[in-house]
């Protein structure tokens, strides 16, 4: 299993140069704590709504979103907005 991105880089290059590294790894322990707290509630909701489609979706959505989060690593976006250049990347 991949791990989620540790850093996000945001850069704006124009007349003034601005580059920011956001330490995403500081958020993950917090997110993990929230996930641990919410897991029993989600399981309960899934159990209650089991006959409905939403029960299955509630169970699947967590791992799926975590998968997307992990897969963000390596994503790069460069936009040339004429006078400014915008760069976003996940490391």
């Amino acid at each position, binding site marked *: 299993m*991949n791990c989620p991105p540790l850093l996000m880089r945001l850069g704006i*290059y124009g007349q003034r*140069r601005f580059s920011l590294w956001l330490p995403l790894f500081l958020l993950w322990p917090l997110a993990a704590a929230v996930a641990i707290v919410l897991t029993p509630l989600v399981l309960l909701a899934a159990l209650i709504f089991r006959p409905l*489609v939403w029960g299955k*979706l509630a169970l*699947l*959505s967590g791992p*799926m*979103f975590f*998968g*997307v989060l*992990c*897969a*963000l*690593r*390596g*994503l*790069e*976006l*460069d*936009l*040339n*907005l*004429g006078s400014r*250049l915008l*760069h976003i990347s996940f490391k």
Partner: protein
Amino acid sequence: MSDNQKRILDLLAEKKISVDEAQRLLSLTGPEKDTGTKGSEESAGAKGKPKYFRVQVQPEAGSGKESVNVRIPMALIHAGMKLTYLIPDHASDEVNEALREKGVNFDVRNLKEEDFEELVAALTDLEVDVKGGKEKVHIYVE
């Protein structure tokens, strides 16, 4: 040489940006032949399993339009494909309807991961270049 390119070289000369940053920024400005060649070399070198899906939109010089360079990890696309299971039926219907209005007769419920695998397999052997209006779109994998 465009104003943007001059500005990037100025920033490099003033040591405000690194050589790598300047190279990356230069590749975004103007329709340079380097960009396409580099993409071809990279994709040609990665004949194994491609890791990234690249989309580059280059406007014509002087058109003043934005250029876009996106590198999407394949893992993100696969994860995104799995998310389609979460789309409710009525939302799929609305998407299909919107596509039909645009002249695209396609059912998003039929979108399967295998189809995307086929597309990626095809893109490892060829690159897609679309030139329309004042933009050139280059799609390849690396």
